[in-house]
Structures are given as structure tokens and as C-alpha cells.
């Protein structure tokens, strides 16, 4: 009998997180739920600009929220040159009333919340849009976000119409062949109901502050 290896690959790159704070029982914060009004929030991006969710929906934009981590392998697989899942969607919607906001809910003293590591990742991943800093995790918990990437689509009425995965491949290696966010946004723009309003998100756990 013999044993052998054909191939093996490990990412040297770091990733993911596990961390944060437990949501207090009886928390009075609003909770995001599909079919209901998406909780409003204001957060500041890495360039210092404030973004308020309702300011985008009020002007008739569909809003996509992408929970982001600079080091998570499940995020990285969508920012490789051969995938560019997120940026390709954003490019495809240029000129259409769609706003894409990335949110990083990792605690600030963790690598994934670290300013410098984030700024470097934007360049590497060709991210030009805003990435919002949610270091307290307040907005992430309000939306029930647990992983990166975790996706939400909010229609122009401010209603949450999609929550779940970006696509149908749950591995850290390949992008899927069905993009749920692309489909949901196209349906909203066409004035149709979202045919798949929820899926199970996959990814790295968000490194929440305690």
C-alpha cells in the first residue's frame, strides 16, 4: 500500500475573524428583516466622508451593502483578477441608480479592522467606492451580519429585499455561477419582486468588538 499527495495548497494570506460582542438580550436596536424597512444608519468611510443609508434611497437609489474584510479568503476570492465579482457588478451598473456600500464591522484593534491593512486592500482589490467603518459593530449587529461577505439589497422605498450570500459557491476557492445580488438588483430595477429574497450567507466570521 502506498500513500501520496497530488497537490496541496495553502494560502499564506491571512483571513477571517472570530470575535466581538454578544448582542445584549432585550436590545432595543432595530433589527433588519427582509420585507421590512432597512434600519437607517450613518457611518464614516476610510476617507472621512459620512454616508447615510436613507440619503441614497431617498434619491431613488437601490443600495447594496457588502460586509467586508480585507483578509478573509471568502472576500478575496471575489476580488481576484479572474473573478472580480463585486467590481464587475458595480461596473455593469454604472449610470444606473445603484449605490454599493461596503461595511467593515471588525473591531479596530484587529487586523481586519486595521486602517492600514484596509487601505492597502482597496488598492490591491481595485476598490474605489466607499468602505464604511463600523468598529463598534453596532450597524453589523443591527443587520444581523455574521460573516464576510454578507450581502443586503435595499430598494428605493428603503425596504430590505435581499439578505444572504453573494453567489452559490460556498467555497473559498471559486466564484459561483449564480449571483444572487446581481439577480436581485436587476429585478428591483425592472420593478419586479425579488425572486430569491434570502439565501444562507457564507464566509468568515466578523471580528466584532466585545
Amino acid at each position, binding site marked *: *500500500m502506498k500513500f501520496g499527495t497530488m497537490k496541496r495548497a495553502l494560502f499564506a494570506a491571512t483571513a477571517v475573524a472570530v470575535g466581538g460582542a454578544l448582542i445584549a438580550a432585550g436590545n432595543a436596536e432595530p433589527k433588519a428583516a427582509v420585507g421590512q424597512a432597512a434600519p437607517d444608519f450613518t457611518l464614516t468611510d476610510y476617507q472621512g466622508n459620512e454616508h447615510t443609508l436613507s440619503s441614497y434611497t431617498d434619491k431613488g437609489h437601490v443600495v447594496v451593502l457588502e460586509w467586508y474584510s480585507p483578509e478573509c479568503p471568502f472576500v478575496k476570492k471575489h476580488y481576484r483578477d479572474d473573478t472580480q465579482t463585486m467590481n464587475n457588478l458595480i461596473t455593469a451598473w454604472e449610470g444606473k441608480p445603484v449605490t454599493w456600500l461596503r461595511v467593515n464591522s471588525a473591531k479596530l484593534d484587529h487586523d481586519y479592522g486595521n486602517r492600514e491593512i484596509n487601505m492597502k486592500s482597496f488598492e490591491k482589490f481595485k476598490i474605489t467606492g466607499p468602505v464604511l467603518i463600523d468598529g463598534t459593530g453596532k450597524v453589523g449587529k443591527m443587520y444581523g451580519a455574521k460573516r464576510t461577505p454578507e450581502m443586503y439589497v435595499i430598494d428605493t422605498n428603503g425596504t430590505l429585499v435581499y439578505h444572504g450570500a453573494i453567489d452559490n459557491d460556498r467555497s473559498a476557492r471559486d466564484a459561483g455561477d449564480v449571483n444572487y445580488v446581481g439577480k436581485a438588483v436587476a429585478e428591483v430595477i425592472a420593478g419586479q419582486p425579488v425572486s430569491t429574497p434570502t439565501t444562507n450567507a457564507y464566509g468568515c466570521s466578523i471580528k466584532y468588538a466585545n
Partner: protein
Amino acid sequence: MPLAQPITVALSAVALALGAAPDPGPDDPYADLVRASVFAERTGVEPGGTVWVGVHFEIEDGWHTYWPGQNDSGFGTRIETAAPEGVVVGAPRWPAPKRYLAPGDILDHVHERAVTALLPVTAPRDAEVGSVLELSFDLSWLVCEDVCIPGWETLTLALPVRESPDNATGLVAERIGAARARLPRAIDQGGTRIAVTWRGSLAEVRAGGAKNLSFYPDEGGSSIPGLATSGTTTSGVLRLAFDTPEPVLSGVLEIHGSGDTSELFLIRSARGGED
């Protein structure tokens, strides 16, 4: 060649270059966090016979891999097999996981230190004694501590066809024994003390008078929201609430005894009665 010693796969092999991720270099602190190997419980298989094959993952201390069941994050370890025509390889049996709860109510079910998945391999009746069955196992996993690193690897196992293969000994027997000790039994082997009662879309699970219970949903049932809170109890009743109209409870019930002892049962129950 004796079968008794598993071979730990050398780490370097061929790295798949993926996007911007650098190849692990010799000083990479994240190299070799999971060391995979494959071995058979016996020194071969008879024509028409079945042998258990173990796929073993040695996991760096402090790190964990993911059980292929309900998890809030991560990636359940996958084993995909390829075998010659006529050879039947069954689904992997995974030892029961542990709950791993992180801030933000993030619940995962994980394996730590080491885990061996067991797969039954059945040779064709017309397999020739003296021939060798070449099996291949495509593995993929995510290993996490504070950060997570994905890994994948293909292992091969050459299984001789023999009239009367011997049992493996040593480390192989030890690892397979450890895996069996954490495999759930069928519920009918638990007697009448395990009961699932449905109240609408709420399943109540009891195990006689046992107080400390945990439930680990597998991939065969409906996902259970709020499991970070409801998935373990010291009250003797697990109350598992579903948000789907026709819920199916499917997974492993662990009845915790004193110290590290426990009993494990496979439970499958659909609303309206066990199926």
C-alpha cells in the same frame, strides 16, 4: 508494505497560485496548520468485502476546522472521492463536533486537534486477488484560529485486494477507534428515553432525565435559527425553534455525562412525527 502506519503528507507539494495570495514560503507561519493522511482499517479488502478508510486531519493546537453541518461561518470540510469502476465509496461519517461560540452570537461546529472521517469502501465481487484498487480523495477545508486559512489537497490510497486482510494496528487502529467513539448511534439504540415532541414548528428534545444536552444540526435537515442560544441546555429539554413551514430536525444529539463522557445519537424527525 505494512499498512499500520499512516503517512503524514508532506506539506509543500504543488501550491495552486490563486490571485494575489502569495505562495506559502518556508517561513510562512500559516503553512502546515492541517496535516492530512489517509489509511485503511485493514491491510486490504476481499472481493465483495467492505473496509473502513479513515481520512485523518491533524490540526494545529488552538486552530479548528469545520464540521460539515450547520455553521454561521467557515466552511465544512469536504471529501470527494474517486475510485475505479465497481468500487463503492460511502459518504464520510464525521465524529461529532464541538460548539464554538464567538462574539456576535456566531455559532460554529468545529473539530479541534485531530479528526478522522470514516468512509466505507466496498470492492467489486469480481475484484482480482492480488490487484490493487487506487482510490483518490479530494479534500478541502478551512482552518481558523483568530484568522482563517483555506486549504486543499488530494490524497491517494492503494488498497490491495486480498483473500484475508489483517486488521491494522498501532496509530491507524488508535485513530479509527477515536473516531468511532465520537460517531453518533442510531436513535433506536438509545431506547425509549430519547423523545422529540413537536409543538408547531418548535421541536422539544428530551433524553430521559439527562440534564445536559446539545444538538448539532447536520446537512440533512432544516437550519435552526437562534441555535447559539437554543443549541445546548442544562435543563433537560432542548427547545429548537424553526422558521420554515415543514421543518425537519436532523443532526446529532449529545447527552453530556460527567467529565468528558457523553453519548451521541443521530436524530431525524419531521414535524408531525418521526420519519
